[in-house]
């Protein structure tokens, strides 16, 4: 009996070992893609697989909400995929933990892609301390969505281009709004809006190479005050995303005429707004301050190769394949994501899309978050303290002081490491 069990055990082990070697003989490339991108990727890469047989590409779909944790856990557990999609605000973090393979050499010698093929702001988010860690896959930024009919009814000539015009438009919209209605929707739990306003006044958000918070300094202080006043003056309701049951319903009803949001809402607005409203909304680049720049934030996702991959050459070939203009525009057709490659925008689908034009314009003027691993944590703190000030729990001054204090605490370890790195020759 015991002998039989032992034989079975040995047999099983041998079988597992054999199947492992068998697996090794056909190289497989594991790719993690997030959300909707993970659904369409297998379809997108069938040509690649055919051209690179016997190489097999295994695509795993990861939900966006769990992706960050899963990637970190995979890194700790040494089970990283060969190629992965990552949010481009995560690049500094994954670069800091050495999870990503630098791609400078590949990019420099590549015939298929060059930095100039992409939006410069998007390319830049992948460069950390002078090294390239990812290739932009699709881009994302925030622009102004607005109701053309409501603006016309309120006597606003067109989308505002400056902060002064913006305030004037908001005042008219608020006066014309139905009772309980507002001029603009700025969900209080989103950090992008106050941070973009700061970037527009050229605040670096952090100072001393990302060692300390710089929120108390004049540029951000002014931007923050401007943002808080949008609520105090009654232009925007003090509501967070969890309180908004259905933003599309409320936009259709005219509860607000303007909304700052991202490209994913192009598709959502077309799908969810009633047909009668189809020609009554559009998009515009963000207004900017007279003495600043009308910039927005550089978002999106990149393709990155893991540091531990055994197939770096194949992974890079897939990156090149996915960066082809034709594939990028097909990717746009399937997902609605905006291509990171500039020449993919010449295809009719994008070139003739009136609502995408604002994104095209804005994408030439985008700034990244500070490239420190802690940037998302700090960004969340910005929203937290902005909410405190909006709801009158703190004065703007106290909120900014607390924000700087929390930021300095978050960056404590970074300061430590930088000091130690300097001490070492």
């Amino acid at each position, binding site marked *: 009996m015991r002998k039989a069990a032992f034989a079975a055990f040995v047999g099983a082990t041998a079988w597992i070992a054999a199947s492992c070697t068998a697996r090794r003989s056909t190289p497989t490339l594991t790719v993690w893609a997030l959300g909707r991108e993970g659904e369409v990727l297998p379809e997108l890469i069938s040509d690649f697989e055919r051209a690179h047989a016997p190489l097999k590409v295994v695509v795993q779909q990861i939900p966006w909400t769990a992706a*960050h944790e899963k990637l*970190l856990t995979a*890194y700790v557990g040494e089970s990283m995929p060969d190629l992965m999609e990552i949010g481009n605000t995560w690049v500094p973090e994954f670069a800091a933990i050495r999870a990503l393979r630098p791609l400078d050499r590949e990019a420099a010698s590549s015939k298929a892609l060059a930095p100039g093929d992409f939006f410069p702001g998007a390319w830049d988010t992948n460069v950390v301390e002078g090294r390239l860690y990812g290739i932009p896959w699709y881009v994302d930024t925030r622009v102004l969505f607005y109701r053309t009919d409501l603006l016309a009814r309120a006597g606003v000539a067109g989308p505002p281009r400056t902060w002064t015009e913006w305030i004037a438009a908001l005042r008219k919209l608020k006066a014309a709004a139905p009772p309980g209605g507002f001029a603009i929707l700025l969900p209080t739990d989103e950090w992008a809006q106050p941070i973009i306003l700061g970037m527009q006044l050229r605040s670096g958000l952090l100072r001393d190479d990302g060692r300390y918070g710089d929120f108390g300094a004049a540029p951000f202080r002014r931007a923050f005050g401007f943002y808080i006043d949008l609520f105090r003056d009654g232009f925007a309701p003090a509501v*967070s995303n*969890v309180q908004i049951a259905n933003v599309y319903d409320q936009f259709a009803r005219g509860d607000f005429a303007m909304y700052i949001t991202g490209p994913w809402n192009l598709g959502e607005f077309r799908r969810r707004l009633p047909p009668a409203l189809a020609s009554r909304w559009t998009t515009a680049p963000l207004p900017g301050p007279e003495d600043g720049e009308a910039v927005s934030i550089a978002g999106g996702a990149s393709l990155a190769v893991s540091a531990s991959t055994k197939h770096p050459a194949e992974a890079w070939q897939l990156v090149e394949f996915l960066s082809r203009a034709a594939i990028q525009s097909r990717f746009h057709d399937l997902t609605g994501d905006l291509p990171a490659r500039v020449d993919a925008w010449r295809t009719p689908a994008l070139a003739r899309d009136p609502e995408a034009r604002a994104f095209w314009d804005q994408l030439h003027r985008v700034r990244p978050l500070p490239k420190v691993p*802690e940037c998302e944590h700090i960004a969340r703190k910005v929203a937290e303290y902005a909410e405190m000030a909006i709801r009158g729990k703190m004065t703007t001054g106290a909120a900014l002081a607390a924000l700087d204090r929390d930021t300095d605490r978050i960056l404590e370890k970074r300061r430590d490491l930088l000091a130690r790195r300097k001490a070492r020759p």
Partner: protein
Amino acid sequence: MSAGTRNTRFGWVFAAPALLVIGIFFLLPIAAGLVLSLVNFDIYSIGDPSTIRFIGPRHYAALFRDPAFGQALRNTLLFVVVGLPLTLLPALGAALLVNARLTRFPSLFRTVFFAPVVTTLVAVAVVWRALYHPRFGLINHALAFVHLRPIDWLGDPRWALPAIILLASWKNFGYDMVILVAALKNMNPEVFEAARIDGASSFRQFFHITLPLLRPALLFVAFITAVGYFQLFAEPYVMTLGGPLNSTLSVALMMYREGFRWWNLGYAAAIAVVLFAIILAVSLAGYALQRRREL
């Protein structure tokens, strides 16, 4: 060797597998958590373990200066203190009603009251978010009906925690009810018959027979519910993510946020240790209370 010590030794041998499992899966993680709370393990440490430093109780010092933690602690305590009676009283009431002889279809009601317990919280959250909606929610419609002003349940920092408490009580009282029903069913009907013959009103029967006999079961459900409520996590996680203004941030939610969102595992471990200490203290106090009553 006496028979006694031999028996003891056999006892240990038989208990060893269980002890081993408890040691590996329970005591070891607790010890590891304690150690983790004393080092600065964070996102950098994943890439380069040499950046880990022993920092002693500095996390604890920072924790008690962190306004978010103070808020989380207050929210959690409030949740337990208010939520516990709000769960136990409906549970007791429902148990008595379901168990009453006059009630028709008792098993139907038992199922109805127990249904929230087995329903996925995410599905429950969708329904409750609609109920709580400031403009279209059923609850505010009811308020308008009695001429009360609408309440922004999940958006107003003063009302968000009460809203979460209400949801949690509704979701959890069925479990307590089922245990109390079982205890009620186990009671000897002769005691009640005797009381009735002696002329005791149903009011007196309840306070002098039912409640004393129910005490062990009540203490048990109070215990289980309180310990569960100290670990409040899922309800605010799906309903409000801790907001607005951290008004629904619980200790467990803050621990999750610090640990798995920002990867400050050292800091998160310190939060876990504090939560563990609180629950341990409450459990010991409850245990002592029970023992004293029994003597």
